[in-house]
């Protein structure tokens, strides 16, 4: 039996507004701890969920930190910086949505809400913050993180889709295994440390891309920048086919690659194509004017 329940929270407490027409079974516990000093307040919300829950947190201003918690519960601790912002929360079946709600006159300081969130490790997670930072650890559900200036950190996730989009916030992924990773930023730097999977796409216009890993899992790795440099560090026993090209920049590798015949291979200094080891993965590094270096660890 599905149940849909939604509550609206005002900063003075929790105001449960309605219960859906079907029988409400889902447990929503919300407690509120308000500290009087400077109108900053802290609230805690708890939601009972099943496997593969979907959790969304959306805030204009403020940090969101998400970690792995118990398998049947979502716990959200929100720190509101003033009375000019509220937290809306809604649970619809297995989906939990949390959002900051700015009131008239709120600005970057007074409209800030910082969230600390514990979710089941298999939950699907959607985060959105303009200024962040956004951080996620130890999950294996699909992740979608979007920010404007937000710094994004994702660590120790596996077997999931990881989609990240920022305007200029730097993005760091560390310890991603078997990931379908898609990262796009306009000018942020992208750092990838031990990131492997069947698909790893990273693109930045003005930012740089650093990769430190083994290009494993027989995956497709495609890194693209416009002006930013690309640097990839891999072990001597890497198994990949490399296609590296910068239209205006220089490229360099210290790997003893077996060359391939290709239109790229003719432009010494700005491109090369070759294989290392058994060529299990496909690696494409492209830039318009950035420098590209493929280095042996």
């Amino acid at each position: 039996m599905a149940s849909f329940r939604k509550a609206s929270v005002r900063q003075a407490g929790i105001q449960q507004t309605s219960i859906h027409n079907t029988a409400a079974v889902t447990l929503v516990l919300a407690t509120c701890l308000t500290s009087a000093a400077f109108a900053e307040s802290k609230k805690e919300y708890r939601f009972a969920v099943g496997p593969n829950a979907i959790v969304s947190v959306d805030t204009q201003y403020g940090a969101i930190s998400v970690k792995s918690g118990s398998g049947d519960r979502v716990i959200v601790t929100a720190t509101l910086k003033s009375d000019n912002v509220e937290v809306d929360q809604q649970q619809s079946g297995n989906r939990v949505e949390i959002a900051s709600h700015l009131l008239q006159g709120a600005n970057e300081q007074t409209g800030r809400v910082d969230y600390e969130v514990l979710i089941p490790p298999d939950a699907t997670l959607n985060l959105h913050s303009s200024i962040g930072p956004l951080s996620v650890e130890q999950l294996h559900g699909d992740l979608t993180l979007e920010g404007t200036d937000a710094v994004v950190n994702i660590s120790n996730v596996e077997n999931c889709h990881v989609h990240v989009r920022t305007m200029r916030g730097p993005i760091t992924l560390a310890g991603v295994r078997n990931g379908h990773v898609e990262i796009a930023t306009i000018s942020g730097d992208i750092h990838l440390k031990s990131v492997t999977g069947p698909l790893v796409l990273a693109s930045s216009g003005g930012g740089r891309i650093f990769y430190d890993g083994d290009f494993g899992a027989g995956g497709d790795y495609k890194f693209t920048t416009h002006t930013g440099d690309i640097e990839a560090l891999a072990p001597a026993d890497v198994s990949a086919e490399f296609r590296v090209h910068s239209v205006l920049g220089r490229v360099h590798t210290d790997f003893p690659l077996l060359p391939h015949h290709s239109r790229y291979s003719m432009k010494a200094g700005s491109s090369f194509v070759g294989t290392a080891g058994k060529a299990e993965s496909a690696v494409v590094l492209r830039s318009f004017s950035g420098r590209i270096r493929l280095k042996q660890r």
Partner: protein
Amino acid sequence: MAAGKGDLTDPKQGITEAEAIEQAKRGHEAAFEVLYHLHKRRVYSLCLRMVSNPAQAEDLAQEAFLQLFRKISTFRGESAFSTWLHRMTVNVVLMQLRKKGLPVVSLEETLEAEDEAPRKEFGTRDVKLTGSIDRLQLQRAIDRLPPGYRTVFVLHDVEGFEHNEIAQMVGCSIGNSKSQLHKARLKLREYLKFMRAEKAKTG
């Protein structure tokens, strides 16, 4: 067919598939979402195996679900929901292949002539496929199959459709379906042996 399981329960919502279908008929977003999450992997994987292109597979999976949801009010439960969905997915994919002018059934003579399957002279004679097959290698070998062979192989060996169902869906005879399946398996065997030989050489 194997895809036609009975009623499913989505534990996360605590509702059965049948309840989700009824709620979806009334326009509940969460019910549509339950149905989507119950079947998304099966549908997407089917599309991916058939077209070997993740972006295209996403579009096809989206189209299959949309077609199903648009018709959900007509679902009366005569057949299993999953059977209905998977047949619809196959039809969406086959229609796409036909639009692109790709054969859904192999034109065998042509393919035999154009076939680029590795031959025994590549030194694969002594390599046997004993033990288990690496999933990634098998996937890559399937990707290399000509579209017509791939269709029959995926529908039969991966998805569990029977030959009579395949014949009906792709528009060929049952004998043709059997013959193409067999040839697809033979080609896969050669591809896999070739891959193992290559790996042994470079390794």
